[in-house]
């Protein structure tokens, strides 16, 4: 094994393959240095006049490296506002809040599409231009690369000593013999070789270019996958109380968002029942109350008459069913109540989901009783506004806050109203809010607002024989997100091929090595080996040396006529830590 020493840093310089300045070494190297990469040429000047010439000039500009660079930079700049401004797609409530808080900036931001940056005209314009540029860049490059694969390594430059790494010695072997040996040896080192004249030209590392092309093509594949996911996706939310179920039809969703091309009428048939929900929380320490596990136990079915099967859904483990995924998003409590009207008949019975307000699940909610008869038998409607705490901290604090998220000491406080709930107004109503416009609050005998705190099992009696409400117990509810996203597999495949291609393009080095053997005047053969690689590659001298050493048995070195370089006396020379 050759023992190698590092080249002195800073001396193996920039190879000329990318420099487009004609006054550089490129000219001297001629074709030998050409196209070590297939980066597009930079040309500044406007070539021909006329429409065609102008269009062609624009196209060439768009597909140039410089414009790609500018577009990439613009893309990253353009993504910044989206991370600083609230986005409608992720948090519509925050957008409304922002607009309410900023009278002047709000409308301006709206005009500039700052609440929807990643779908905005200007953001789209940048990435569409980038991808046009990419396609315009990749297609010609692929042709060019295919051509390079078929063509053979370029001929040796006239003067091999000008190359970034070069070595030479004299031998008594015939030039013919040396070249043949070099040919064999380079082939064995998996170089593509060709004999021409007095030299053997060879090249290796084509996979770099292939990797680069694969990477850029994969970016296009990922964009297509992303677009597919955007156009055909659907994403709906559903709150399910323990014991209840969900089936995948439009009317069952609390809300459903879908891509422009998604057919809402053709939802795949499946559904599930929430059998139970388990949550555990940190009981001690500074992070007391932090959730530790959330688990939804469900039984689900698929197809028109599928057998129910059991499963659990946890935060990182969605349920996959019917081409969709069901994610567990959140949870809360639903007090179970029974409301009896003034006649003593049950007007409402069941769990009512309350919405959590803080991390200890202090929750608020409303109970609406639309079908109700008062003590005199007149039709009326009842409404209750309530606060529910799973762990009551004790009276006296004025407002009610939960002390812990688990059901350690549940208490519900209610105020009651009667009147018109407004359900018939035809306007959509929020099930978690009471519209108090046409409602009157119950007052107690002293004229004070009627308010009552209940523990499970307790019953409150409305003043004036208006009925009762009993707090029967508490169930948990969970919110689920049902997502259908085509193109995920494609995106993953694109990402993985991109990664492979990228690694190939960054780790594989494309390089050329020329071996020249010429007959000198003294009858001995002069062997010259030179290499060319990309500037960042530091091991080119080692590679050249390795080829040289491997060639020695076939071309034993003669002692140098005069020792011109003192370095040769000391094998450690040139080695730097």
């Amino acid at each position, binding site marked *: 094994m*050759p*023992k190698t*020493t590092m080249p002195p*840093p*800073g*001396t*193996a310089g920039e190879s000329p393959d*990318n420099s487009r*300045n004609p006054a*550089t*070494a490129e000219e*001297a190297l001629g074709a030998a240095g050409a196209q070590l990469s297939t*980066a597009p040429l930079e040309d500044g000047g406007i070539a021909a006049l006329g429409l065609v010439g102008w269009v062609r000039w624009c196209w060439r500009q768009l597909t140039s*490296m*410089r414009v790609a660079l500018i577009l*990439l*930079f613009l893309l*990253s700049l353009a*993504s*910044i506002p*989206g*991370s600083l401004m609230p986005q409608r*797609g*992720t948090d519509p409530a925050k957008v409304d809040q922002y607009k309410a808080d900023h009278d002047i900036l709000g409308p301006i931001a709206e005009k500039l599409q700052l609440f929807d940056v990643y779908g905005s005209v200007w953001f789209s314009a940048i990435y569409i231009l980038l991808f046009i540029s990419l396609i315009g860049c990749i297609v010609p490059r692929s042709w060019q690369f295919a051509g390079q694969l078929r063509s053979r390594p370029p001929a040796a430059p006239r003067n091999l000593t000008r190359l*970034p*790494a070069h*070595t030479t010695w004299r031998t008594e072997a015939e030039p013919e013999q040396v070249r043949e040996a070099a040919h064999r040896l380079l082939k064995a080192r998996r170089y593509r070789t060709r004999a021409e004249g007095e030299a053997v030209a060879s090249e290796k590392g084509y996979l770099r270019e292939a990797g680069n092309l694969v990477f850029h093509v994969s970016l296009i594949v990922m964009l297509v996958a*992303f677009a597919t996911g955007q156009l055909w996706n659907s994403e709906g939310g559903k709150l399910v109380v323990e014991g209840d179920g969900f089936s995948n039809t439009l009317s069952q969703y609390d809300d459903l968002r879908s891509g422009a091309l998604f057919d809402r009428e053709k939802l795949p048939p499946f559904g599930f029942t929430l059998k139970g929900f388990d949550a555990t929380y*940190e009981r*001690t320490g500074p*992070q007391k109350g*932090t*959730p*530790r596990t959330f688990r939804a136990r469900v039984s689900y079915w698929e197809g028109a008459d599928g057998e129910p099967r059991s499963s659990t859904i*946890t*935060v*990182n*483990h*969605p349920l996959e069913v019917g081409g969709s995924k069901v*994610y567990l998003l959140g949870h809360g409590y639903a007090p179970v109540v029974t409301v009896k009207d003034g006649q003593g008949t049950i007007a409402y019975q069941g769990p009512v989901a309350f919405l959590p307000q803080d991390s200890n699940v202090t929750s608020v909610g409303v109970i609406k009783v639309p079908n109700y008869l008062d003590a005199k038998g007149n039709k009326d409607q009842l409404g209750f506004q309530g606060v529910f705490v799973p762990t009551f901290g004790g009276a006296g604090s004025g407002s009610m806050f939960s002390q812990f998220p688990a059901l350690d000491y549940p208490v519900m406080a209610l105020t009651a109203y009667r009147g018109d709930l407004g359900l018939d107004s035809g306007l959509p109503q929020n099930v978690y809010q009471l519209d108090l416009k046409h409602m009157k609050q119950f007052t107690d005998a002293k004229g004070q607002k009627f308010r009552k705190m209940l523990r499970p099992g307790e019953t409150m009696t409305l003043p004036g024989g208006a009925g009762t409400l009993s707090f029967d117990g508490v169930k948990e509810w969970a919110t689920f*997100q049902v997502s259908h*996203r085509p193109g995920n597999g494609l995106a*993953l495949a694109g*990402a*993985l091929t991109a990664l492979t291609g990228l*690694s190939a393009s*960054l780790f594989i080095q494309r390089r050329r090595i020329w071996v020249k053997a010429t007959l000198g005047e003294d009858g001995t053969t002069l062997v010259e080996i030179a290499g060319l690689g990309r500037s*960042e590659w530091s091991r080119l*001298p*080692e590679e*050249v040396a*390795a080829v*040289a*050493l491997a060639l020695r048995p076939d071309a034993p070195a003669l002692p140098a006529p005069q020792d011109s*370089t003192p*370095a*040769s006396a*000391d094998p450690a020379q*040139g080695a730097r*830590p």
Partner: protein
Amino acid sequence: MNIAAAANEDMASISNVLIYSAMAVYTLAFLAHITEWVFGSRSKVGRTAAALTQHTVTAPPAAVTVTATRKAGGTTVLERAEVTTRSATGRRDVPDGPGAAAGDEKGELYGRIAVSLTVLAFLVHLGGVVARTLSVQRAPWGNMYEFSTTFSLVAVGGYLLFLALGKNIRWIGLPLVTSVLLDLGLAVTVLYTDSDQLVPALHSYWLWIHVSCAIISGAMFYLGALATALYLFRDRYETKLASPQGKQPGPAASSILGRLPAAASLDKFAYRINAVIFPLWTFTIIAGAIWAEAAWGRYWGWDPKETWSFITWVAYACYLHARATAGWKGRKAAYLVLIAFACFIFNYYGVNMFITGLHSYAGV
């Protein structure tokens, strides 16, 4: 509190003691490095570093000797190949500076002491992170405190690994140790979070994969950014030297910058590290997307953390493109690296502290 929990608390306090001890040893290493630089500036080589550089602007091509031993019929033959290397035209042929100690014996001694102390500090630091891992019984990067301590551990580990591989990287020692001290200081004061478990959203083996890759990428990008910053100083210095009629660097600048490696070496080091880590960073983002798909139902949702990872990624892609574009190599590309790394840091500190998103950690 059960016995296991008590043991965990013990582990947590052991970890804290180890982290503080590591900071103390890093401080000693810092002082040793300073001493090395001070002795180096007094050395003859150090004083003449500038002059030396000027002389070698027209240095002849360098020779590299590669030797190989070959068994020929039982005897060992030493073979030798001498390879001449040269820069392309239009490039400064400047040799690397002599290093912080600049050949001064005492400086060299303190340099070695500094490296030894850094190794010791690294081991103590490693112990601190391991104790923390045992205490929380999960990956040691569930909050910003843990992320910071692991991050600087990996950065120092990378540096020591390069040293062990015989790379010329001692020059990064002083700035690295300085910034590790800053990072740890920030971690133990502002970011400290008691040892604890994670919220359910972070319970996933992707936490191991995604975050460990993010930490390694960040730590290595950090070394790349340090090298790039030094490159910018050294490059300006070389440019001044190359035009003797223009303004010349001052004596302090000459003394310090003259001892650094050549601009071309720094640039190459930075490029290589960034290019090698870029695919890992790409993988980090892909792994994050896979995790997000499992946790939130979409692999990409422009959450602030995701957005800034993307911005960082595009910024590094810009840099790699810039290197292939005429007119954008060198200093301009170097500024792009600094911007890209600033994006990484903002993603880590800025997004966690100033922007709320799904990626909020336990604790800070």
